[in-house]
């Protein structure tokens, strides 16, 4: 084992430990939802395959790219604060917030189209899962944005430094979770046939 590997291995989790407990709990929640989806799909594979065609994958793909890019912005924000550049950190976070806003706008447009097409909670089991999962995730994006907004505000106020930037890492960790869940959700609900 070389020295670098041992350094990486002994490094603690980035951000506040409490956020990892929360991330663990959140992933459990989504895990249960995905398991329920899989359970329902196995019993109604034909229905799920047919109903899935009603979704607009372009919206889904666009939102995937938006969230992945926003995660990159958050990474740059973390790197900036580690280099002591508070203002740059704030700018990157505002960029990520902007992309979060784009995600919400695209998702709302998609929901609007869904409703027009007759997709509803009562329409069929697939639509119920699709709407519940994506709306539940939508609320998580809103919450992640609230966290990033607080972190950005503090970054501009100069409350973080090279030595103390746990808050930035905490916000970033949560945002990455929101992104990660979407990637799984996109593959599971929009793509896998």
């Amino acid at each position, binding site marked *: 084992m070389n020295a670098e590997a041992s350094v990486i291995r002994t490094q603690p989790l980035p951000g506040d430990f409490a956020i990892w*407990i*929360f991330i663990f709990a*959140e992933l*459990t*929640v989504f895990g249960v939802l995905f398991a329920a989806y899989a359970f329902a799909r196995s019993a109604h594979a034909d229905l799920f395959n047919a109903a899935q065609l009603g979704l607009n994958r372009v919206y889904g793909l666009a939102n995937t790219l938006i969230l992945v890019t926003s995660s990159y912005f958050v990474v740059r924000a973390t790197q900036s604060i580690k280099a002591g550049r508070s203002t740059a950190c704030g700018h990157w976070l505002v960029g990520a917030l902007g992309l979060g806003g784009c995600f919400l706008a695209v998702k709302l447009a998609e929901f609007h189209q869904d409703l027009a097409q007759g997709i509803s909670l*009562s329409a069929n089991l697939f639509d119920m*899962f699709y709407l519940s999962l994506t709306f539940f995730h939508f609320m998580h994006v809103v919450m992640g944005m609230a966290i990033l907004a607080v972190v950005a505000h503090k970054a501009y106020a100069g409350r973080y430094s090279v030595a103390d930037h746990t808050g930035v890492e905490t916000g970033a960790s949560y945002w990455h979770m929101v992104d990660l869940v979407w990637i799984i959700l996109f593959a599971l609900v929009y793509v896998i046939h």
Partner: protein
Amino acid sequence: MKYQSQAVAKPYFIAALALFVGQIVFGLIAGLQYLYGTFLFPELPFDVAHMSHTNLLIVWLLMAFMGAAYFIVPEEAQTELYSPKLALVTFWVFLTAGALTIAAYLFVPYAHLAAITGNAALPTMGRGYLEQPLPIKIGIVLVALSLLFNVTMTLIKGRKTSINLILVGSLWGLALLFLPAFYFPQDTVKASFGWWWIVHGWVEGDWELILGALLGFILIKMTGVDREIVEKWIYIIVAMTLVSGLVGIGHHYYYTGAPSYWIWLGSIFSALEPLPFMLLIAFSFKMLLARRREHPNKAAMLWALGTPIMAFLGAGLWGFMITLAPAQYYMHGTNFTAAHGHLAFFGAYAMVSLAIISYAMPLLRGRIANSDAAQRWEMAGFWIMVLSMLGIALALTGAGIVTVVLQRAAADPMPFMQVQDKERVFFWLRELAGVGFFVGLLVYLRSFFISGEYEYAGEMKRALAA
């Protein structure tokens, strides 16, 4: 006690415990009526005993929560209560209203009570837990408004800690969630929804936040762990409660008349409701391990650590057992529900009330902790009550299994009353455990009458000798 005005919590706590005794007496009577249907009939029919049992539960818990608020809010806000006088007046109004209600249940036939209290003008009576006559319901709202005014004004003029914000916020939620009590339309679906939101909005949502705030306060005080660490945990627990609870309370919507997608949404999210309780256990024990001092009030610590475990068992585990739609199809309304109700109400809300009373009462009586002897009685009471309540829950679970096997899932379902006969052994076990619980309660109450305070010197000597 840091602020004089915190003393108003004392009558609330004493009244809460007195009403608790009343609740258990009616519980024992109702339990016996399961075995001997005509016991005390017609003077005290089962429905009146049952109604008194559940109404007293709600009233004593509200008493305890109010006492807790009057004790905690000034201390957290670092200022005297806005109006101690108002708090005392409110106490007497609430106690009188509560006592009048129970007396009315006992001495006036329910239909007559409804007629003379204006139920025809605005029908509100008759639903479980919400049997109170209209004037009493209005009184409850006024009492709640008085409490909210008092604690909110205190909060505004003082320090705004997270514990205080969550506590006062959830007390507002408690009051707002009571308002559907005035909505009792002819349409049974809508009426059920109104009822559901009150009781389940409380126990699966709002009250969990109160529980988190009370436990957080007790653990900050007793362990000396940094406030920021406790607050972080409390925020996570609050967030998980809302994530699981808001949709999770939909686990009976389908059976109430809502669209079928609620079978899925209700099942999934209510299955997640044990999560915040697991977090509460992790939180409490982490704080215990990280403690910076040994608080002399060991009994309060025992209550504080017992609460999340029993809440997890009662609300989490027993709740999960009956919440998934396929299970609920067979189990709903059987004694499984009663087992869950008993263990959850006691484990979560009764125990956290007893925890804050255990922590605050010695301080209100002018000492940091009770004498060692008093604490031994209190802790004996804790164990007898906890084990007895587990006995009650297990006995009722047994009765629930019998109903499911012989009636709900049987190819040739046995009639209800015959099934009840087959369950006699479990009803006896429940009654015996109930007597055990009552003994535990008396042992617990005995601890309040042992004078003297905790002596550091004596304890130190004993510890060194050992």
